[in-house]
């Protein structure tokens, strides 16, 4: 019993740290995915914007869903939200607390992706190279309207034959990258300040309600885990009894129908208990056949008359 208690305590204290760990792993995975992804701007007038913004926003949505899926607590929260009231009232504050903690953890990986994308700059250069003002750059100021769009669209592709020796290409690239990095750092700063304020100012507002909500959300989580473990233990005992009864009933049938002399039960008592009256190849085969063709019903009430 002592060991069980230790294991339960371990689960309880580590549920939050397990979730934090998963959140951290997902953030690292998102950085790794970005660095291993081979960004390849199409350098065509309308495709650039779609590609650039797509790479910036679609993976974060997928990462957000992944964060929700991998978090076990999201299922617990949904179950608590949708269960019928029954004899236990539902507390909206607890559900809100669980929801907000799940969302916060799930948002980390998408934000990491967006920030890394902006700090790297390739996406924004690809998406907005066609939108810069060509008058500002010497190399593009003299081109005709149709041509300038084509040329600007090719700016992200360094090795393109038209762009290889164009000095204004580097100027446009640097300009867009500067904007991109400024945006990235600003977003990072705003988020960190917001997180800092939220943590610091939280105790000023409604600390009691927060403590209650946190306690009951932990409770619901643990209750769910213990219920699953109890079900496992129960099904194990159920199976054990079912199988024992099956062997005993086979033993009864054999006693009724066999022509062996009644045993006096001396000698290897222990061994024969384990043998459960089955001492013959055919008896064993019959037992195995019965087990397959006619599994006993799931009912361990003993109503045999011995």
């Amino acid at each position, binding site marked *: 019993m002592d*060991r069980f208690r230790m294991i339960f305590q371990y689960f309880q204290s580590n549920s939050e740290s397990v979730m934090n760990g998963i959140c951290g792993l997902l953030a690292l995975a998102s950085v790794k995915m970005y660095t291993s992804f081979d960004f390849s701007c199409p350098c065509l007038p309308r495709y650039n914007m779609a590609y650039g913004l797509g790479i910036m926003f679609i*993976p974060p949505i997928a990462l957000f869903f992944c964060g929700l899926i991998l978090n076990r607590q999201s299922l617990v929260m949904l179950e608590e939200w949708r269960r019928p009231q029954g004899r236990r009232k539902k507390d909206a504050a607890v559900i809100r607390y669980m929801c907000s903690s799940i969302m916060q953890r799930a948002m980390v990986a998408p934000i990491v992706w967006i920030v890394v994308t902006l700090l790297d700059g390739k996406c924004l250069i690809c998406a907005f190279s066609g939108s810069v003002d060509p008058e500002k750059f010497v190399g593009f100021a003299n081109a005709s309207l149709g041509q300038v769009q084509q040329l600007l669209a090719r700016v992200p592709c360094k090795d393109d034959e038209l762009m290889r020796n164009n000095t204004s290409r580097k100027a446009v690239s640097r300009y867009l990258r500067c904007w991109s990095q400024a945006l990235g750092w600003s977003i990072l700063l705003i988020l960190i300040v917001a997180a800092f304020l939220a943590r610091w100012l939280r105790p000023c507002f409604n600390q009691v309600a927060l403590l209650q909500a946190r306690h009951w959300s932990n409770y619901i989580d643990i209750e769910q885990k213990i219920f699953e473990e109890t079900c*496992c233990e129960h099904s194990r005992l159920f199976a054990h009894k079912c199988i024992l009864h099956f062997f005993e009933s086979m033993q009864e049938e054999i006693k009724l129908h066999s022509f062996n002399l009644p045993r006096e039960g001396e000698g290897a008592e222990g061994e024969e208990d384990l043998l459960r009256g089955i001492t013959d190849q055919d008896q064993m085969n019959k037992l195995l056949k019965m087990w397959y063709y006619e599994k006993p019903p799931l009912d361990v009430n003993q109503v045999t008359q011995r």
Partner: protein
Amino acid sequence: MDKFRMIFQFLQSNQESFMNGICGIMALASAQMYSAFDFNCPCLPRYNLAYGLGILLVPPIILFLLGFVLNNNISMLAEEWRRPRGQRGKDPAVLRYMFCSMAQRAMIAPVVWVSVTLLDGKCITCAFCTSVPVETLGNASNPSLSQGEMKRVLARIPCKEIYDGQELIANEVAIRYLRCISQALGWCFVLLMTTLAFLVRSLRPCFTQAAFLKSRYWSHYIDIERKLFDETCAEHAKSFAKVYIQQFFEGMSTDIAAAHCHPPRKTPVDVGEAAEKLLGITDQGTMNTALKSWHRSKPPLHLHLPALPSANGWAGEGQPPTHPPAPRKETATYYSRV
């Protein structure tokens, strides 16, 4: 017993995490396999499509089937599906639950392969290079090329060294275009799969929670019951073998004593247990005879229980008792549900 219970619970609670681990390893293996695979586009008009789509679609099917093969619950599902009804009803919800959970895990490695393939871009570039819109991206107005010729030139786009259609359409432009399409498809596929997975997981508690709890319990139960039955049979086989072999040796010893007209040896009292364990066989020749007869003529699988008055206790002796007729239902009162 306590230790057994704890270990069992650990295994049971960790069966799912064990399967999740295998699933993760297969996903990593699939990504590694793709990067180790040497993609080699044939650069010929009809072969490109077949090769590209083949590499995109055939390995995922293989990985999906492999996911089922590596899952040891598949035999449990098959057994439960095919067993005769007997005295225990079959619940289709339980079978569906088992199948769904196995299929979900088996889907992960194929999805990873398809995503990695699309995000890399080589397959789509190879498969669809003949369908590049030359009018918008290049110069389609070249009259000297027939349709077939043009297809042959376009088919060489993925093979930069032998590409000779720079005037028709620049190689980099075509590759960038195809790659962009491929990566867009890849990310949309990833988004679609994660959305589906999210919906499947989150809609369940909203609709069928009670039925789900029931199916999950009974599917775990079937698994545990199978394992326990195997354990019980193994225990039984061990005891059976022990008693059986003991009787065989006793029979040998009696037989040899009778054949050599020796009175059964009286072990001196002080030798004790060790002598008993020898079971009457005390020289090389006797042992060899025992081993030879064990191999050449094993006695039938029928234990002689201690109270039976048997003089010659071995080989080919009594026939097993006549089989009891098919069990009469009225004696099996155990089975009735009150």
